[in-house]
């Protein structure tokens, strides 16, 4: 009593369905990302890669290198620096830039705070403050295609965004008026003053990223793997004490075995308890996780249901 389909798979010699043999999930995701990267490099004059040293931007850089191999990555990288960095991530950023021979631009939130163009938020987090330095850097360098490592599975506003996403002269995203994205076509056209944001990892999940890191042997900052660290607990998150995140009264500092699932502003990026010391163990851990990446680790995304949507409309990553 089984259902019969009008489609007969036995007639299709080229099927790579459940029986396997053809390109697997990672092959398909990699190929889609490389197709997008090559279109942008071919069509636009001044592309740039947003690079923080976080795992998604490291994967994005790896894919760009693969897309252009054996040519070097000639696309410059831009780090929008909150000033609240994990020292090991900053060191990793600089080592990576040197290894690939990249041109690095840094837009510093601290510069804007120093001269009064931006003011510190009352909650102390600097992730939302990155928008203005980012937009200024795009204008200053006349970047027309800005690659980011954003993924649609991270957030419900991101889930609505196109792989190639148009920004107006003010860097704003208009979610109600997006270009249809058809077949495998990549349309990067825009008017002078506008630019496109490009998210080649749109269709990847956190687990896909980790499986790809495992398959390709991609190096990451050590804090993505389990290590002993002094932490204190705030709002259910494990924060690392530092110059910008001092424990308050009653918040006890303990040494725990933790790792980071995301890397951002150190004052609001939480660690998770973990014993995963290798990439294989992280893959297993992520596959079994019961909490999303952002829910586990980003205080700033808990502000409201629409925190990311509001930031994106203003020109955030």
């Amino acid at each position, binding site marked *: 009593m089984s259902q019969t389909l009008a489609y007969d798979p036995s007639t299709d010699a080229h099927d790579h369905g*459940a029986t396997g043999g053809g390109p697997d999930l990672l092959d398909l995701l990699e190929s889609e990302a490389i197709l997008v990267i090559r279109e942008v490099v071919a069509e636009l004059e001044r592309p740039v890669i947003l690079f923080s040293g976080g795992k998604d931007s490291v994967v994005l850089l790896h894919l760009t290198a693969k897309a252009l191999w054996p040519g070097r990555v000639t696309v410059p990288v831009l780090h929008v620096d909150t000033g609240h960095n994990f020292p090991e991530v900053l060191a990793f950023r600089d080592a990576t830039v040197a290894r690939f021979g990249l041109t690095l631009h840094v837009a510093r939130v601290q510069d804007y705070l120093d001269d009064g163009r931006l003011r510190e938020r009352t909650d102390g987090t600097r992730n939302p403050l990155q928008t203005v330095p980012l937009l200024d850097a795009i204008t200053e360098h006349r970047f027309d295609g800005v690659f980011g490592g954003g993924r649609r599975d991270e957030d419900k506003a991101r889930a609505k965004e196109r792989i190639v996403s148009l920004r107006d002269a003010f860097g704003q995203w208009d979610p109600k008026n997006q270009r249809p994205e058809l077949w495998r076509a990549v349309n990067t*056209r825009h008017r002078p003053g506008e630019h496109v944001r490009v998210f080649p990892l749109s269709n990847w999940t956190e687990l896909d990223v980790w499986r790809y890191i495992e398959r390709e042997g991609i190096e990451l900052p050590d804090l993505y793997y389990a290590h002993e660290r002094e932490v204190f607990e705030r709002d259910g998150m494990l924060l690392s004490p530092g110059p910008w995140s001092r424990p308050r009264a009653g918040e006890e500092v303990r040494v725990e075995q933790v790792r980071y699932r995301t890397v951002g502003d150190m004052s609001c990026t939480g660690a998770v308890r973990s014993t995963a010391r290798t990439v294989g163990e992280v893959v297993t851990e992520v596959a079994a996780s019961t909490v999303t990446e952002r829910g586990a680790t980003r205080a700033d995304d808990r502000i409201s249901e629409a925190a990311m949507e509001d930031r994106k409309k203003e020109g955030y990553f």
Partner: protein
Amino acid sequence: MSTPTLLRLATAGSVDDGKSTLVGRLLHDTKSVLADQLAAITDASRRRGWTGELADLALLTDGLRAEREQGITIDVAYRYFATARRSFVLADCPGHVQYTRNTVTGASTADVVLVLVDARHGVVEQTRRHLAVVGLLRVPHVVVVVNKVDLVADPATAYDRTVLDIEDLRRTLDIDSVSVVPISALHGDNVVEPGPHTDWYAGPTLLEVLETLPAHRSGGPARFPVQLVIRPQHGAVAAEHVDYRGYAGHVSSGTVRVGDEVVVSSSGVRTTVVGIDRGPEPLDQATAPLSVTLRLADAVDVSRGDVLAAADEPPTPVRSVEAVLCWLSERPLVPGARVLVAHGTRTVRAVVSDVAERLDIGRLAVEPASGAGLNDLVSVTLTLAEPLPLEPYARSRHGGSLLVVDPHDGWTLAAGMAYATLPGAGASPGSLGGSDRFDAAAPLAGEHR
């Protein structure tokens, strides 16, 4: 650890068919909703006065503030879920505003489109609209999901009636593969597990269908649209590559093997593939849709925009093409409009020299046309400033698809299908020689217990 295969899904349904609830149910019952997301929507459901079991699963897919405020879905949202057998990318396409634009967008990349039908109403005009678009875009499989079977007194009869109506439409619209699955998205019956509201039905659950449908197909003659010429010279990653010359792109159909003879579409010049590189890793062959770099035996003139094609079955470049356009812009189409046409990696100037017919999608009948507006499906003639190697869309989804682009601001105005015909407009879409479709004589429904 091997990774699973990927299936691309798109949904289509009217506003009240329970589409968001179904998507939420698929995510929830495949354990793809994590604790913090469920807590967030449980909380939001209570604040909105939800009294049912679980939470309002539709809230999982409403991403924008305006959507939550108005209780509607505005734009295509992408969701991800996985089982042990497969990973799924789901494009959730809203049904009411700009239905054609959204359905075309979702369906153009989909292996499978889920079309929702309310068991109380059966096949309605909206169902015909969605199936017409899905048929025109030649989506390999359609799953008609008969939802809300818990709300009808005799669900088996309602299901049978829908199966008959869908079979009629399938023939009219020339759709390859359709299956019909009864469910209750609200209660979860027959989505992932069978349930009491579908105890009369003996076929597979929706997820079982999705896990066993054939995934992407890569048949047809080899085509490779060139994106970039890679010639690093002294910008190479290592000195041994200074003389490297390769053509970067993706295999848009078929398989390319080392030793294959290929022809450059624009010049007709022939050469042989001597190497296939995926980054530094050499391959013997590459199957669609892999992104690779090809090395060729001869220093032939190949640049971005060219297509390298199987020498024994090359495409023919044309200066004029008849096509069906799905008009996706609020700016109307006027005959004589000057536009850009993008095909593969080449974009050329073009004139829409004739607008012949328009599909009255409600009646599924064609009528004479003199232009097109948002969501219209029209047959046109495009006159191209330079030749493009366009192939019949019915034979090749990628060789036959084109974008119509506004030359002023780059906006995507229309999705085009070369040598396609509107449903009911005479010649069958496969009549232009060759088709990748299949004999569709088998029954499409699951049997009753």
